[in-house]
């Protein structure tokens, strides 16, 4: 099959799962680590901590000076970064292939020897950086806080997705150095991580180096259960809503639904629905909202979340003179009408998804990240190879019944941004 990726998987004695997929096309190698911890694991009063902690991981470790991580990677012509999300935190480096050892050494040093390098001054510095990140991306940005509002509306307070990844300024301000130590000892364990290596390398050599750098890191107890109650019905009971009047230039509607999570077979019909509604110029939302000038733009997203439920979402932006009620009606009409999707639309959506997946796989960094994702959530990285097949197998009946069950008005949260007259 086109795009089939050969994968070799091992588990070290300390529980670290290693996924390797060599490809000698370009002398570039990507190292990608997924830790099984994200904003869902945050204790009450500590929202945003998983992300703040991610910043601390770049502040040096026992053998790496502060900012040494970026400096060493940039010096050899590599790139590095990390992201925090609901269910996981990922760290990655892409380097010219002869510098694979450097990337492994850097990642292993912070997995095993981070705490000796931590101090209060570094925490203060990164606390300021993260507070600025929040202000720049959420508070000083039109629509910037939409995900916070959607999450709070769609998921009950007891659910781990009720709060945003960035967290509140109060909670970020409250984080202590003890929190950093506890979080590290609880979650940053080899037995709570997946290490993927993709690109130009010799698997035997890489495996040997991974044993060398990571083998001595001590495992720990399984991380504690996720706080709160993650099992919730795929139903909100009624259409929940919040209106946000304010300094936004254009009206915008976010419409979200609680849907079956990534780890269930019912995720795939949802994925097909999301593509049919929102991807490409033939999609329903483009065809019926954008072409008819009911919206300036419209998109649809299904997030690959795993904790009890996932999040399905439509975002539609109007024109300056669009009435927000009309925009809402246009969006909810298409959610209601997803039950009328056709065989032709499904076929086209899956064909498009296949080509886009191949395009994404051209980059070793993406490949490594996807392998880590499947290994983390399914315990099987090779599932990446089956995923397009799963999409292909979805039937029109499944698409329609999924839409009927999950996109109805009894499972809906609406956040509407409304431009204020004075502005």
């Amino acid at each position, binding site marked *: 099959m*086109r*795009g089939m990726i050969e994968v070799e998987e091992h588990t070290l004695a300390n529980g670290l799962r290693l996924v390797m997929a060599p490809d000698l*096309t*370009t*002398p*570039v190698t990507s190292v990608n680590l997924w830790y099984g911890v994200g904003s869902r694991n945050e204790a009450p009063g500590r929202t945003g901590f998983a992300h703040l902690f991610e910043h601390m991981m770049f502040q040096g470790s026992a*053998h790496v000076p502060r*900012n040494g991580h*970026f400096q*060493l990677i*940039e*010096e050899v*012509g*590599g*790139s590095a970064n990390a992201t925090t999300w609901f269910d996981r935190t990922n760290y990655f480096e892409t380097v*010219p*292939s*002869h510098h694979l*050892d*450097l990337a492994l*050494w850097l990642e292993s*040093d912070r997995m095993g*020897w981070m705490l000796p390098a931590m101090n209060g001054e570094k925490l203060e*510095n990164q*606390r*300021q*950086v*993260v507070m*600025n*990140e929040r202000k*720049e991306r959420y508070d*000083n*940005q*039109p629509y910037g806080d939409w995900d916070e509002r959607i999450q709070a509306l769609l998921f009950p307070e007891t659910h781990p997705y009720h709060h945003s990844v960035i967290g509140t300024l109060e909670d970020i301000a409250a984080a202590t150095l003890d929190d950093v130590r506890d979080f590290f000892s609880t979650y940053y364990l080899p037995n709570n991580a997946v290490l993927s290596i993709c690109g*130009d390398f010799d698997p035997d050599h890489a495996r040997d180096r991974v044993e060398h750098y990571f083998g*001595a890191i001590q495992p720990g107890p399984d991380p504690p259960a996720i706080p709160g109650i993650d099992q919730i019905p795929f139903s909100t009971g009624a259409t929940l809503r919040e209106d946000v009047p304010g*300094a*936004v*230039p*254009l009206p915008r509607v976010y419409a979200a639904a609680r849907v079956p999570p990534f780890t269930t077979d019912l995720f795939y019909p949802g994925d097909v629905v999301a593509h049919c509604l929102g991807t*490409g*110029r*033939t999609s329903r939302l483009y065809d019926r909202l*954008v072409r008819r*000038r009911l919206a*300036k*733009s419209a998109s649809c997203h299904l997030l690959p979340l795993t904790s009890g439920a996932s999040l399905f979402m439509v975002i539609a932006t109007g*024109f*300056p003179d669009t009435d927000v009620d009309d925009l809402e009606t246009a969006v909810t009409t298409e959610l209601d009408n997803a039950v009328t999707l056709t065989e032709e639309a499904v076929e*086209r959506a899956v*064909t498009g998804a*296949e*080509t*886009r997946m*191949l*395009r994404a*796989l*051209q*980059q*070793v960094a993406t490949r490594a990240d996807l392998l880590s994702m499947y290994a983390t959530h399914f315990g099987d990285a090779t599932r990446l190879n089956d995923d397009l097949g799963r999409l292909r197998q979805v039937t029109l009946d499944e698409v329609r019944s999924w839409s009927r069950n999950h996109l109805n008005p009894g499972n809906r949260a609406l956040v509407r941004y409304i431009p204020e007259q004075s502005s």
Partner: protein
Amino acid sequence: MTGRGKPPPPGPIRPYEFPPVADEPLGNGMRVRVVQKQPLGLVTAMVVLRAGESAAPAGCEGLAVLAGDALEGGTTRLSSVELACRLEDIGASFGAATGWDSTTVAVSCLADNLVDALPLLAEMVRSPAFDQAEFDRYKAQRLATAAHRRMDPASLAADFHARSIYGDGDTYARPLGGTEASLGALEADHARQYAAARYGPARAAVVVVGDVESEEVRQLADREFGDWGEQSANPPEAVVAGREPGRSIHVVHRPGSVQSEIRVGHVGVSRFIEDYLPLTVVNLVLGGSFSSRLNLNLREHHGFTYGVRSTFAARRNRGPFVVSTAVENSVTAAAVREIFREVEALSESGPTADEVQTATSYLAGVFPLRMESTGQVASRIAGLIVFGLPVDYYRDYRDRIREVTREQAVAAARRHIRPRELCTVVVGDAEAVAPGLEDLKIGPVTIHDLQS
């Protein structure tokens, strides 16, 4: 553990070569460039037209961008919906992108489908309908985008800064996508006239990168573009007169802002300067990487910001040099002070030998990292067309980067960074930030209303 104390040495280096570029023009002068690449069976085909926003006539600002958008709006044969169906039925993604110097229209699909996709790409470019209703739809979208830019602090800062460093009649003084006033006056006829004058085979190219045979592509391109009639006039170039140099600070008052969007810079360089590579090194050291002087100072030392960067925009005429960041109100003046300190120090003494070494090693190293996908390679080749650079430019690019010396970098920093001409724009709460900015004594502080 043995060996844990210091970074491990590199392994044996594996050679990287930019793939060969087949280059043979069609009879009408249109260039065809083909790169064979990829085991995944994909292809990107891109038509590059020297039809950028710089060539839009006065009073029609935004026309090139809008005409580019409207290429998706159907051809004289196919409606917008029919065009989209034909391309998406074969899994293709497509779209047009317009910059100051070019319009590119690209299709990306399985290589097996190129034979169906390339004719549609050619049809979009050669026979656009510019139907009035479709044109009005794209126009409404661009007008809404312009309205958005007025309220988005980052866009507002960038647009205000461009207006402040360029002269009133300068091309780059305005936003790329035009203003609400200029867009409002545009009609489908304008797009037809623009396309007739600017879309044509001369100075244009079709770039195809992927799992293809270059001879087959050439034949396909010849069939689709070979009879495209000659259009000869050179497009007008961007005008840059600049302003009276001198330091100034403009505060755009946005009451209640919790942060200040800061832009500091001056009119920069064109892509044609001889010391472009040394200047690239200088910019990397200043604010072009995580470990840059600006980022280590403002973010990692002071904790003022989530990030700060500097850029020299590469255009056919002199694009802006800009340092940009967003910081809290209380540290706005301090952040501007630190930006000036870093810019002044670098323009005076240039980068150190170590910094040059690190920067050249970085640029040479990341080059193949950014050449993995067919789209990335096609975009690079399109850039060569736009700037008239040789077809084999990237063959020894990494060697030329490594050859940049400290002396060259110091000279480039002195020549192209002019601290006495730095213009500062701050979009934020003037009541909170203006007094501190006055105290810096950098230059006169002017406060502007949001609506101005």
